[in-house]
């Protein structure tokens, strides 16, 4: 049972990193990024391929963050000059392009079979529960650092401007500031976080394959920040916990509710999360950590 909880906690921590990035982009800046998983994919494959080459983890994680951020740069430059809703479409398209590229470029990524045998992180601590707990502690430490950085950004002139961009972009221009530069930086920062999350994910699962990086992941992160509270740093964490509670909790429904097969269960889980999302938007649209108006 401990192993199960550590496993869930690791996934929560990885998702929290993704949610913190998306919260910076959407919650604070108003960027509708439907392609978050694409940056996670870039990070995961970067870490996997570099681990295969024998790079030490700190270096390959850094490379994963940088490559994911660089992938965001041209995307941002091209589409952030367009209207918000176009960016949503372009970003969704981007993540699908990334997935198709890693599927097709077999010489590099081994196609649909993916890359197996990615070594576990923190292997020097031993194996089994000890090693998993060490990974969890490392992830918690990374999350704490990221949350501190986010709080610093939120309570700064930079944070003020990105929130102003979210509230009214034309007014920001009218005051002599160019929103595009801020949006590109926010997009790259969020992508770097997704890249790090992807690297953790690759090492934790032990292999990467294209079907792990479907748009569903992006929308699960969206559900998390909507339920947790858009624009709140704490909302990213709380929302991820709620999401995982519903996803994993509904797994146990099978013990209580009869006549549900293994296959049907997958649909039921999504249904439960969908219902939760509807109830949240109906009864607590500002999310659990609430109050969209205050930080």
């Amino acid at each position, binding site marked *: 049972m401990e192993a199960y909880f550590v496993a869930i906690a690791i996934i929560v921590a990885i998702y929290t990193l993704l949610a913190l990035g998306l919260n910076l982009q959407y919650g604070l800046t108003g960027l509708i990024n439907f392609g978050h998983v694409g940056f996670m994919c870039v990070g995961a494959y970067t870490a996997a391929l570099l681990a295969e080459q024998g790079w030490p983890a700190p270096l390959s994680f850094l490379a994963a963050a940088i490559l994911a951020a660089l992938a965001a740069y041209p995307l941002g430059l091209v589409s952030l000059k367009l209207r918000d809703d176009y960016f949503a479409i372009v970003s969704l398209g981007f993540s699908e392009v990334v997935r198709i590229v890693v599927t097709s470029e077999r010489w590099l990524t081994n196609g649909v079979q993916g890359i197996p045998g990615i070594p576990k992180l923190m292997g020097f601590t031993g194996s089994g529960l000890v090693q998993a707990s060490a990974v969890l502690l490392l992830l918690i430490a990374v999350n704490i650092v990221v949350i501190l950085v986010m709080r610093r*950004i939120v309570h700064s*002139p930079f944070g003020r401007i990105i929130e102003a961009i979210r509230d009214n972009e034309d*007014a920001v221009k*009218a005051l002599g500031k160019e929103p595009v530069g801020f949006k590109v930086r926010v997009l790259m920062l969020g992508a770097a976080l997704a890249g790090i999350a992807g690297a953790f994910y690759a090492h934790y699962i032990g292999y990467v394959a294209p079907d792990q990086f479907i748009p569903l992941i992006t929308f699960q992160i969206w559900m998390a920040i909507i339920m947790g509270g858009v624009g709140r740093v704490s909302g990213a964490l709380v929302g991820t916990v709620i999401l995982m509670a519903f996803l994993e909790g509904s797994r146990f429904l099978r013990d209580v509710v009869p006549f549900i097969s293994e296959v049907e269960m997958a649909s039921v889980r999504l249904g439960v999360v969908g219902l939760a999302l509807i109830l949240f938007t109906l009864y607590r649209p500002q999310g659990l950590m609430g109050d969209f*108006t205050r930080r």
Partner: protein
Amino acid sequence: MILAIESLSKAFGGLRVVDDVSLTVPDGGLVGVIGPNGAGKSTLFSLVTGFVAADSGDVTLDGRSVATLPASGRARAGMVRTFQVPREFAHLTVRENLMAAAPEQSGERLFDLFFHPAAVRAQEEGVRRQATDIIEFLRLTAVADTPAGRLSGGQKKLLELGRALMTGARLILLDEPFAGVNPLLIEEISQRIRELNGRGIGFLIIEHDLGALTRLVATLHAMDRGCLIATGTPDAVLSNPRVREAYLGGAA
């Protein structure tokens, strides 16, 4: 002369919304533009401030053409507009709205934010003091820490004026500063504009409320169907038969 608009034109489809309009604002001037709905006043503002690209014509600020600059560049050059429907940063407080407008903040650069925190903090204190001064000047102290989305219409107009002041603009273009504002506050806003004008800030003001505007400005321009039809002192413009006809909707 701080602002010169030369033969500015813009057509949407076949409709000439602004048709060969030229006007100037002298240094420290207080100039008004009137005209019935659809006369092209707000479009003229958007052309001048770079929010809409002009078909032809030129805009010079302090004798330098700004026609090729984007909206943000024109604002940095010293010319800041407000909007007919106020565009407050609804989730930021009044104080934060003003502070966001301060130019050249090192804390807007992520590198400085994390590697020169002391310099960022020092500058932030200065910006905060400046915002407090402007909030007091505009009599917004009571709502200084209220999210701007909760302000009344008139308070939002004052907020936009305050943000323009924070940028250090030398010319402020006000788009209907009295629209949707209660009569008491109209006099209040007029008084603030006079005081600022006394300090040398130029104003170009679009307004429907002819009474309040004519009491405020020295020079008035009248527009109708995209064209400038009269220029002069407020009394002269208001008694001009073409202006009366445009407003009363007489047969053209």
